[in-house]
């Protein structure tokens, strides 16, 4: 090929690339904007009709003009009309006293923040987050907030991820800082592994909590003590714990195929007897911190395989052969408010 032919070919290729990528961007943009302008397909109710009774609060994930907005349904009618709060969250945890809401602020410089909201969904306090929101939980009385984010090690030479998990008082106040700094005790021995990651806090009360510690290629269910600043191992192979309302059981994810790839299923640990039940017929491949609907039933979110960005909330009993039931369509990050 002559130099001229090469230049012409290159220009032709660039034109084709620019035109096809441009057309794709415009088409997708038009389609998504039309989608996001539509009203939700799900029936709606006013917030006032639901907010006084027991309810499930969640992130709505229908691809419509309420996408990402926090909604609620009555606990006794989860498939019924939903009420929208007008507040957008990636992850939400709620009590009757207020809510913790983790948000991605998309922009040319994308940032992340943790908002604490009062009972009227108005912000009480805001703090920055160092990475992508992953989990948030409130203590039973709503006085403490736990957040977990993914810190993407975006550096010039390397990639890799770690988690940052911290606990603080609701509405600003005392901060316990990154739980990585707590003394880790595994099998009765104080250890200082380099590769520790901590995620998925669930509170027992204002001092005690459970969480996951990942280190050395395995995961540990640990009991945390805010006053003593310790994390003490309780059980191995357990991630993202969630304590039952009566405090007797912990549900978590386990990787059932650790040798090949990660396939998570749910297991439940009875804290008094140490007996562990794997929900063999439960969801496979979930990646969520489960929530308790009541003392025998779990809630969790699952992405739809054929519908990018849309998720549903499912429920499953805590028995070994229980099968999942679709509970709330187009929902994510469920949190149960009992009073």
């Amino acid at each position: 090929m002559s130099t001229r032919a090469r230049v012409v070919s290159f220009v032709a290729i660039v034109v084709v690339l620019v035109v096809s990528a441009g057309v794709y961007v415009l088409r997708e943009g038009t389609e998504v904007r039309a989608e996001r302008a539509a009203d939700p397909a799900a029936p709606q109710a006013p917030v006032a009709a639901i907010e006084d009774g027991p309810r499930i609060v969640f992130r709505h994930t229908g691809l419509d003009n309420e996408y990402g907005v926090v909604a609620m349904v009555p606990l006794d009618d989860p498939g019924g009309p939903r009420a929208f709060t007008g507040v957008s969250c990636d992850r939400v945890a709620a009590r009757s006293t207020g809510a913790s809401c983790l948000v991605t602020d998309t922009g040319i410089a994308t940032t992340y923040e943790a908002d604490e909201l009062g009972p009227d969904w108005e912000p009480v306090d805001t703090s920055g987050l160092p990475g992508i929101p992953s989990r948030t939980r409130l203590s039973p009385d709503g006085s403490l907030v736990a957040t977990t984010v993914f810190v993407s090690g975006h550096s010039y030479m390397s990639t890799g991820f770690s988690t940052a998990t911290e606990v603080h008082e609701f509405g600003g106040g005392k901060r316990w800082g990154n739980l990585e700094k707590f003394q880790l005790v595994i099998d009765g021995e104080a250890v200082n592994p380099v590769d520790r990651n901590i995620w998925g806090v669930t509170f027992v009360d204002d001092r005690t909590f459970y969480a996951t510690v990942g280190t050395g290629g395995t995961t540990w269910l640990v009991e945390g003590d805010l006053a003593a600043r310790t994390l003490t191992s309780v059980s191995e192979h357990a991630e993202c714990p969630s304590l039952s309302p009566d405090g007797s059981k912990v549900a978590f994810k386990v990787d059932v195929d650790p040798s090949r790839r990660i396939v998570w299923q749910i297991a439940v640990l009875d804290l008094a007897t140490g007996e562990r039940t794997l929900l063999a017929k439960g969801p496979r491949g979930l990646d969520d911190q489960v929530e308790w609907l009541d003392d025998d039933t779990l809630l969790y979110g699952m992405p739809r395989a054929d519908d990018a960005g849309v998720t549903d909330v499912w429920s499953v009993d805590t028995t070994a052969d229980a099968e999942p039931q679709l509970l709330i369509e187009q929902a994510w990050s469920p949190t149960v408010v009992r009073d």
Partner: protein
Amino acid sequence: MYITVRDRPGSDQEPSASGTTARPPVGRVVILLGLVSLLTDVSSESVSAILPLYLTVVVGLSPVAYGLIDGLYQGVSALVRLGGGWLSDASDRPKWVAFLGYGLSAIARVFLLFATGAAGIAAVVTADRIGKGIRTAPRDAMISTATPSEHLGRAFGVHRMLDTIGAALGPLIAFGLLLLVPDGYSVVLVVSLAFALAGVALLGLLGPDVRSRRDRSPQAGPTPPPFRWRDLTDRRLRPLLVISGVLGLLTVGDGFIYLALLDHGGVNVSWFPLFYVGTNLAYLLLAVPIGQLADRIGRARILVVGHLALVGAYLCSVLPTSTAAATAGTLLLLGTFYAATDGVIAAIAGRLVPVQARTSGIAAAQTVVAVARMLASAGFGLLWFLLGPAAAMGTVAALLVVAVLVAATRISRLDGAEVTP
């Protein structure tokens, strides 16, 4: 930035006669390869910027799952780099080996559009990284061959500046597209693919077929023999490998420096995801001037002394009075460190081995640095937990000062070594 483009790289052989004020021209090869890198970096950095969000929001996976798999492949890159160097030297076809690397990364982008699940995505990212491992050394060897020795620092500076402009633009383009199309991750992937293909096309169609062995001028002696591994044991190269290995062992990842800044809470944590933007900005602004300085006062000198900027970054990141100024200072020093080392080491290495081993020589130096830094990060993690950020950074800073002082005794030997034309 004023850059003169000359058509024939061969004509750069005569030293500039136009006096001290004239800037030396930068060869067409350098600009072209710089543009190829720019396009490719826009492609890869736009994806890296959104990948964690894409994984959590669309694929519904925690990046932890992805990170675990990702870690397994870290060592592959070093081996691939040496393999790419060997292939390039043995065939004397650096352009087409580099093309293979760029092509592999572009193909990986196609698969990323369809990949689901952590394993699939990790495999695609690994293919991308293998592509990067293959292409880096042949591309640097082309720059080295196409540039007269006395202007190499500047040539690599220009290349790295263009490369880093791409790395800085990538995330901006990605987040700009997400503003245009809400949650339009597939749009970012498609645009990224278009940039990658444009880069491959630019190299394939317009990239000059620079061949270190064939293109040697007849005056330089008979045609060099084919590449042998023994060429890598060149006495001139050895001190460079030792020095960069030792200094690399005290180079902890930027991630730790960013975390140290975050740790004492003086900066708003919201800015954390943007720290690397500041580092890139400093790097791209300083790559050319520091490269020029290296040509003037000695490249090994700049390489070694440049590690003092890293010492500064370590110390600045744990200053007790943390302010926005300390953060900006840390990022500036980190960018300075990259400008003084990343391109400079390739500029040195390519001239310390026989011409038939140029790519392998560059690959060897880059591999030593990469492996040493990997070990450094692992070891530093331990120190971080045992001593806390401030004491850990202080310790490494002190050790690095000692290492720089020791390495400094070797500078004159390296800078004075006879260079391969």
